[in-house]
């Protein structure tokens, strides 16, 4: 027993939130006391968040998982021989054989939880920078064509074809262009951006560098929300290392290409996740939405042609380049190509991240992967796509999770978050919350959103209190129509989606 045994204890914020640091410290202390040499790698999360802190032990057969581990469990795990991967009630066998993990199609999250997030060597040993190395030998038009052919669409929610956006920026004449990553992941029920930034930050750096090569930009910004302090720290450190190892900066690996990248931290404004509000915020202004046109691809940051893409879009780019457009395009359903990292959240037994090709049913996600509600009570509603997404009733969970099927059903996929509610939820309260959230977070530029949300909250207060319900329901319907048709951006325009879906599917809560 002289060679150190390698253990993995995640450094992901979700794992830290339930004591991963304390578990790592307890393992080190226990190993020292027993004079057993161990080597601890602080990896990203595997995405099986209900098992966090998930400790893995490296064995010749693969990594063996134990979780959720508390510091109090550590001594008994040693007693049981977990360093030799022996059984224990917290043991789950080989990590990659766990049902939840085994059946995923991990393209974007392929390395997340596997590698040391801040090791370039580890990143490259697992296929990292292969996409960029190819891109460095291609012309901008060739890169854009590859991405267009892959069918990749914007993962932020709108689903706009990425290649078409890039082509607009590529063909816009300008002395200066920008690549901006929207990492203002404010939707409740979503954490994929945070997880990939904390678990595989070089992937985002690689994706943004490829984007810059494709459109002719030399400067990039990541707009990262302040509520994610761990992600900010990890990404800044990764950028520092990338500069040090010549993956960022001037003349990257002698290619003649320059790309500079900087993290900018948001300040608690949800609407800054809207691309033009984000650009205003990056310019140091109030995060007020801009009228379009002009589109950011032509007049974006500081008035220059700018690619604005979500984290999950940009982190899908390296695999498209590395494996080719056809490989990526073969995943998915209909016009939704590739994979989507779905996030299972709220009242769910097995919450976490599940990356699968588009087209999986919501039912499979919630039950086969998620295991139903955490409380064990009947499931009543699933809000899909964040605070601006529809509430889907249990009876409609057979819906296919792809852009078109969701839109047809009057819902949206958004950023791929699913928030599960059991039968204790009151849907009139959730409808009121949607309006309250909009009132709180509206940028204030357009009247339907700014005033409409406040009036919406007031009307729903009356409905919840049972005051003149029939008349107020008509008023609420009217108000929703005005907000949908008259708002400048998705904030006011989509707030009626959760409200109206709650009314449509759960009328008994409004009667």
């Amino acid at each position: 027993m002289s060679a150190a045994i390698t253990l993995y204890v995640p450094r992901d914020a979700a794992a830290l939130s339930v004591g991963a640091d304390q578990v790592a410290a307890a393992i080190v202390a226990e190993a020292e006391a027993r004079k057993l040499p161990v080597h601890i790698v602080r990896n990203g999360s595997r995405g099986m968040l209900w098992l966090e802190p998930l400790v893995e032990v490296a064995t010749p057969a693969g990594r063996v998982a134990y979780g959720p581990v508390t510091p109090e469990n550590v001594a008994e795990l040693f007693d049981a021989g977990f360093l030799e991967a022996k059984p224990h009630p917290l043991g789950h066998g080989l990590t990659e054989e766990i049902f939840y993990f085994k059946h995923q199609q991990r393209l974007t999250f392929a390395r997340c939880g596997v590698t040391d997030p801040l090791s370039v060597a580890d990143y490259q040993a697992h296929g990292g920078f292969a996409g960029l190395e190819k891109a460095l030998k291609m012309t901008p038009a060739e890169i854009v064509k590859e991405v267009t052919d892959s069918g990749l669409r914007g993962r932020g929610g709108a689903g706009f074809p990425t290649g078409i956006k890039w082509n607009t920026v590529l063909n816009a004449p300008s002395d200066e262009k920008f690549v901006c990553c929207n990492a203002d992941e404010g939707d409740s029920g979503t954490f994929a951006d945070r997880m990939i930034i904390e678990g595989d930050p070089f992937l985002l750096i690689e994706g943004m560098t490829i984007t810059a090569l494709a459109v002719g930009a030399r400067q990039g910004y990541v707009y990262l929300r302040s509520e994610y302090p761990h992600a900010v720290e990890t990404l800044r450190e990764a950028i520092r290392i990338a500069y040090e190892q010549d993956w960022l900066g001037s003349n990257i690996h002698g290619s003649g290409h320059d790309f500079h990248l900087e993290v900018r931290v948001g300040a608690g404004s949800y609407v800054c996740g809207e691309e033009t509000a984000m650009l205003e915020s990056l310019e140091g202004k109030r995060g007020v939405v801009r009228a379009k046109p002009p589109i950011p691809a032509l007049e974006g940051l500081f008035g220059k042609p700018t690619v604005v893409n979500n984290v999950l879009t940009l982190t899908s780019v390296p695999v498209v380049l590395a494996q080719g457009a056809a490989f990526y395009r073969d995943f998915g359903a209909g016009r939704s190509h590739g994979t989507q990292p779905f996030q299972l959240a709220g009242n769910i037994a097995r919450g976490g991240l599940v990356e699968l090709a588009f087209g999986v049913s919501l039912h499979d996600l919630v039950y086969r992967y998620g295991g139903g509600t955490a409380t064990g009570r009947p499931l009543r509603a699933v809000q899909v796509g964040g605070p601006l997404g529809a509430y889907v009733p249990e009876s409609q969970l057979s819906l296919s999770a792809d852009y078109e099927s969701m839109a047809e059903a009057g819902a949206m996929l958004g950023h791929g978050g699913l928030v599960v509610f059991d039968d204790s939820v009151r849907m009139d309260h959730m409808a009121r919350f949607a309006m309250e959230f909009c009132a709180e977070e509206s940028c204030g530029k357009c009247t339907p959103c700014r005033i409409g949300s406040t009036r919406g909250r007031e009307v729903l207060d009356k409905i919840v209190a049972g005051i003149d319900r029939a008349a107020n329901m008509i008023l609420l319907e009217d108000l929703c129509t005005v907000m949908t048709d008259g708002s400048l951006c998705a904030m006011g325009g989509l707030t009626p989606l959760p409200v109206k879906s709650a009314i449509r599917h759960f009328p008994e809560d409004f009667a």
Partner: protein
Amino acid sequence: MTAAAWNAERARAIIDSHRSLRGALLPMLHALQEEFGYVDADAAPLLADSLNLSKAEVHGVITFYHEFRQSHPGRHVVRVCVAEACQARGSDKLVDHLKSKLGIDLGETRADGEFTLEAVYCLGNCALGPSALVDDQLMGRLTPARIDGALA
């Protein structure tokens, strides 16, 4: 969370150190808040001067963003998530518990300066809610007993 007392000289130096950035106002405000715990009213004219903006523009930016504080927070800041995913896991009860334990409402600082309690919309810990940020420590699977332990 020990913040330095407001000092105009120090503030000016912080502002100057960020002047080379494009769109520097938010980074400057973050740096000032990091140093002093809040953005003092006297910072606005310094920022306006440095960036060639009007004081009104600077004030407009400070007040637009939830994150920037205009007065000293408590020694400990508890930011509890009230968004949908945490609601689905019973954040309402956690908020009620915190209000009665700390004796303050959301958005308030206790008279003895010990605690500030704030609502936040989503901390990205939506599978392990209810969640809160206690100072810079993210906490998940919160129960009244667990948060009491953290605040003890």
